[in-house]
């Protein structure tokens, strides 16, 4: 007997962009993926990715990083996702969609999320080689490829996307122009004052802005590729590459072809439930839809709302459910960082409400412009922020209500008479904190109080807040902390069982009160039961490191084996070498920048041969010698120091190496002397004790052979200087470093690295690499940039002074140690038999060298007392 399968109703989604993906998630949340077959036809060769963050590709995010699609989600919900297979036609009568591959899918519900396409003005030459649009990852890859043979680029359009594109060209090292037909940049979002502040900052970055002119023709050379463009004022602009970014248009051709109603200026007409007015079985969401209020929304937040509305309507179909969502229009609030400038606008930004008033703070010198639009009764109606959008999250949430402080205090910069800061705790519960996902403060609070979330990542997962544009994450952090504190939840952030303070707090205590010993710190500031004790293996090295970092400033000895300091160090620091599994040590002399003369190579070879050491080239471009017994270390180092080597600090939580490629000196592609810069940096920061190890690299051109972007601070040469990247990491959790600043001179680079490292040392947790630190600290990269580039905390002079003190107090630990007989006395295997080697340390040959004799380690091992083993019958280990 065969049972005919019951026909499963089918939902076909055309388009898999951010809104399409949100729609799928909304289907899953409503259980519809379980009851329906869901087929997705996606034109692009990859699943949905974060188009809003497209430009971040140029600051190191890979296409994979940009993805917003979890493959497990697609799989778990049985969604049939067909990438690279767009819908070609729709037969509404037969209820069938035909894809390019020839696949025909019948549907019960069809959802169009086809997005938009870039508008290219119909100027002669617009299709010439070297003309691009800026919409997809493929566009980006094409621009990147073409830019390799270009020196100048121009963007047509000075709106939001145009500035994004200009930022990308600038990032590719092109001399960049922006051509905007309107009299100011970002005409939709900002007013004249905001445009002026924006213009100044962008021009300061070396971009040329041409406003009030149109593009008349793209000029091409003999080979048909772009050589320039003719503008409406008669002038001509020489350029190798043109990016059209003059707005987008709804992609509604598929809808037109199957007879759905479209608006006069495009867009698939839908009702308040996002159902097309022509066919109740067809929905349209996102940028292709003409919403019930007669507008096409080009932002992601309204698109998300439409996705949820459509999913709700589909779920309610065929039921009596009255609880349908409606989409009647959306807030156009935006916060962006364009070309390094914060720009935000929200609510009634242009002051179109009757009787409204402006509160404006403007400082063109600093590139700041802040305007609030306030109603006659004091209600905050909207605003524009350029140059500093820190307050955006709070201000947007207050929009529509009367803030509890006078409006001028909300725009004045700190230190310019601004009264107490207005924190998110002052917000009402119904205030929307995350506008991308329409999450209110009340919901965030509920996540903490009812769902037990204690961290921002948990709240993000629970509420979706902060997973859109991310602009509200800082406010989320403040809310979570406030809520936890209000709820009396004990969040023990203490360093260890001995200290209730974090490493950062201990740093501040040591710094401010000039505490120079762990013992004193423990007895005065330790936890109740820990005072008077011996501390532990966590706090001792941490405090030792903090004291060493601050040594010149607080008047402590910077030498880690001095006095009490010696007792605080981990064994590696204590013996100035790296402990290996059999109790022997490895030795790594510093080879700055990886550059080494033959004579020194020979010395290393001789020492390794004479002491029978195993040698291996490290990932940091130096040479590691393994298998030294503790009593051999001083003898080996005496020879190394004599040959001009110094400690490589491979054992310390401190600067390891600054790798380099050969750079301009030898390489035909190099544009700067990367080796010299790597040596300079390595010699400057050598011996600097920090919360964790620090790695760096310098590449002589954008080919990045030194892999600088996998380092804590990486430097990449540009034609006019250096780009500085921070927070990179390899290892178990790889992370590409983020661009901190561009085109720096030698002096500017060193100054920024000084500040960055000292700020990291001051604020990071114990064993927290820069990558994790950057992800954790409130405000992330933007905050770090504000502090170290713009000196928003006013501490840069101090940070620089600390680094200067470190540099001037640096001494080679090994040179110092071999001069000191008392310290040398510690380098023995046995205190009562100084000349006897540890019998457990032995070696056997392997591949022309030697390796630890591991069986030797087991001889005589009796890990468990016999009577105990018998009692508990437990396995020995």
């Amino acid at each position, binding site marked *: 007997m065969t049972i005919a399968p019951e026909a499963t109703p089918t939902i076909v989604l055309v388009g898999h962009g951010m809104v399409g993906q949100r729609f799928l998630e909304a289907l899953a949340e409503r259980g519809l993926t379980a009851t329906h077959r869901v087929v997705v036809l996606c034109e692009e060769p990859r699943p949905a990715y974060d188009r809003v963050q497209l430009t971040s590709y140029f600051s190191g995010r890979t296409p994979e990083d940009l993805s917003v699609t979890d493959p497990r989600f697609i799989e778990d919900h049985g969604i049939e996702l067909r990438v690279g297979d767009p819908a070609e036609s729709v037969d509404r009568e037969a209820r069938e969609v035909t894809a390019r591959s020839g696949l025909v899918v019948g549907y019960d519900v069809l959802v169009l999320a086809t997005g938009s396409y870039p508008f290219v003005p119909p100027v002669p030459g617009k299709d010439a080689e070297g003309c691009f649009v800026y919409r997809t990852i493929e566009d980006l890859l094409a621009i990147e490829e073409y830019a390799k043979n270009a020196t100048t680029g121009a963007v047509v359009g000075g709106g939001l996307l145009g500035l994004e594109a200009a930022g990308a060209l600038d990032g590719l090292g092109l001399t960049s122009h922006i051509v905007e037909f309107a009299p100011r940049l970002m005409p939709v979002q900002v007013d004249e004052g905001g445009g002026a502040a924006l213009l100044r900052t962008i021009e300061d970055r070396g971009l040329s802005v041409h406003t009030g002119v149109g593009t008349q023709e793209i000029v091409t050379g003999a080979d048909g590729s772009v050589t320039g463009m003719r503008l409406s004022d008669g002038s001509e602009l020489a350029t190798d590459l043109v990016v059209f970014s003059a707005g987008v248009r709804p992609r509604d051709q598929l809808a037109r072809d199957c007879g759905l109603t479209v608006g006069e200026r495009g867009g698939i007409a839908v009702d308040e439930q996002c159902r097309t007015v022509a066919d109740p079985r067809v929905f349209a969401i996102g940028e292709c839809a003409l919403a019930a209020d007669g507008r096409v929304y080009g932002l992601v937040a309204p698109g998300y709302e439409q996705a949820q509305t459509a999913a709700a309507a589909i779920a309610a179909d065929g039921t009596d459910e009255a609880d349908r969502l409606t989409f009647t229009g959306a807030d156009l609030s935006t916060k962006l960082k364009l070309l390094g400038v914060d720009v935000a606008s929200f609510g009634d930004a242009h002051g179109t409400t009757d009787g409204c008033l402006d509160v404006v703070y403007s400082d063109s010198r600093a590139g700041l412009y802040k305007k609030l639009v306030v109603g006659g009764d004091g209600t905050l109606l909207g605003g524009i922020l350029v140059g500093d959008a820190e307050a955006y999250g709070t201000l947007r949430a207050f929009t529509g209500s009367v803030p509890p402080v006078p409006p001028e205090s909300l725009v004045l910069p700190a230190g310019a008479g601004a009264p107490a800061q207005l924190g998110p705790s002052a917000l009402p519960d119904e205030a929307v904190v995350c506008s991308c996902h329409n999450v209110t403060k009340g919901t965030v609070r509920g996540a903490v109080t009812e769902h037990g979330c204690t961290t921002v990542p948990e709240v993000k997962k629970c509420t979706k807040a902060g997973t859109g544009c991310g602009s509200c994450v800082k406010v989320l952090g403040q809310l979570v902390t406030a809520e936890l504190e209000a709820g009396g939840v004990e969040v023990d952030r203490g360093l260890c069982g*001995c200290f209730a303070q974090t490493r950062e707090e201990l740093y501040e205590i040591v710094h401010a009160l000039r505490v120079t010993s762990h013992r004193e710190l423990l007895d005065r500031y330790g936890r109740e039961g820990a005072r008077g004790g011996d501390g*532990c293996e966590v706090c*001792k*090295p941490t405090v030792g490191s903090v004291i060493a970092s601050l040594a010149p400033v607080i008047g402590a000895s910077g030498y880690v084996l001095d006095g009490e300091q010696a007792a605080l160090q981990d064994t590696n620091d204590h013996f100035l070498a790296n402990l290996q*599994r059999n*109790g022997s040590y490895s030795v790594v002399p510093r080879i700055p920048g990886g550059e080494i003369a033959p004579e020194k190579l020979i010395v290393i070879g001789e020492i390794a041969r004479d002491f029978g050491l195993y040698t291996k080239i490290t990932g940091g471009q130096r040479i590691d010698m393994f298998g030294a017994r503790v009593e051999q270390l001083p003898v080996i180092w005496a020879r190394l120091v004599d040959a001009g080597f110094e400690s490589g600090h491979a054992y310390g939580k401190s600067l390891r190496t600054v790798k380099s490629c050969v750079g301009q000196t030898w390489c035909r592609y190099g544009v700067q002397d990367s080796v010299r810069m790597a040596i300079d940096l390595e010699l400057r920061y050598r011996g600097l004790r920090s919360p964790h190890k620090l790695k760096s690299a310098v590449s002589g051109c954008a080919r990045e052979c030194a892999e600088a972007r996998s380092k804590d601070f990486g430097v990449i040469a540009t034609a006019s200087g250096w780009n500085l990247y921070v927070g990179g990491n390899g290892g178990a959790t790889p992370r590409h470093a983020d661009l901190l600043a561009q085109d720096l001179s030698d002096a500017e680079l060193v100054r920024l690295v000084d500040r960055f490292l000292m700020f990291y040392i001051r604020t990071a947790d114990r064993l927290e690499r820069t990558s994790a630190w950057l992800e954790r600290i409130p405000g992330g990269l933007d905050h770090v940039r504000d502090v170290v580039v713009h000196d928003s905390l006013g501490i840069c002079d101090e940070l620089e002074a600390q680094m200067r003190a470190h540099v001037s107090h640096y001494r080679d630990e090994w040179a110092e140690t071999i001069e000191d007989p008392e310290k040398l006395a510690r380098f023995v*295997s*046995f*205190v*009562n038999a100084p000349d006897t080697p540890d019998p457990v340390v032995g070696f056997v040959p392997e591949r022309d060298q030697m390796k630890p004799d591991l069986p030797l380690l087991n001889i005589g091992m009796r890990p468990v007392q016999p009577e105990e083993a018998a009692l508990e019958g437990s396995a020995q280990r």
Partner: protein
Amino acid sequence: MTLALETTGLKVRIRLADGTWFGVCDPGALLPGRGVAALLPDGRQVAVFTDRAGRLYAVDNRDPFTGAAVLSRGLTGTHRGRPFVASPLLKQRFDLETGRCLDDDTVRLRTYEAEAG
């Protein structure tokens, strides 16, 4: 291998299995919070520590988890009022008075009486 153990004029002493005391070093060789290793007449190794109150502790120097003779190079501390040493290799902690591993109940170090005299 010949051992030239110096046993005269030393003040820190370890009590051996046969009940005799064996001198290992001058108290000045011990830094509070750090240890030293000493070789015993039977070829075993002992790790000797002192804390900031001047109390002495002695345990087997071999790390039972790796077999390496390194415990004297670990960091000591106080956990709930009791002294411990953390192995410098894989960081397991051992109570200095009982030898018991705080991270694995089935493992215990041999301990020795130690005194300054």
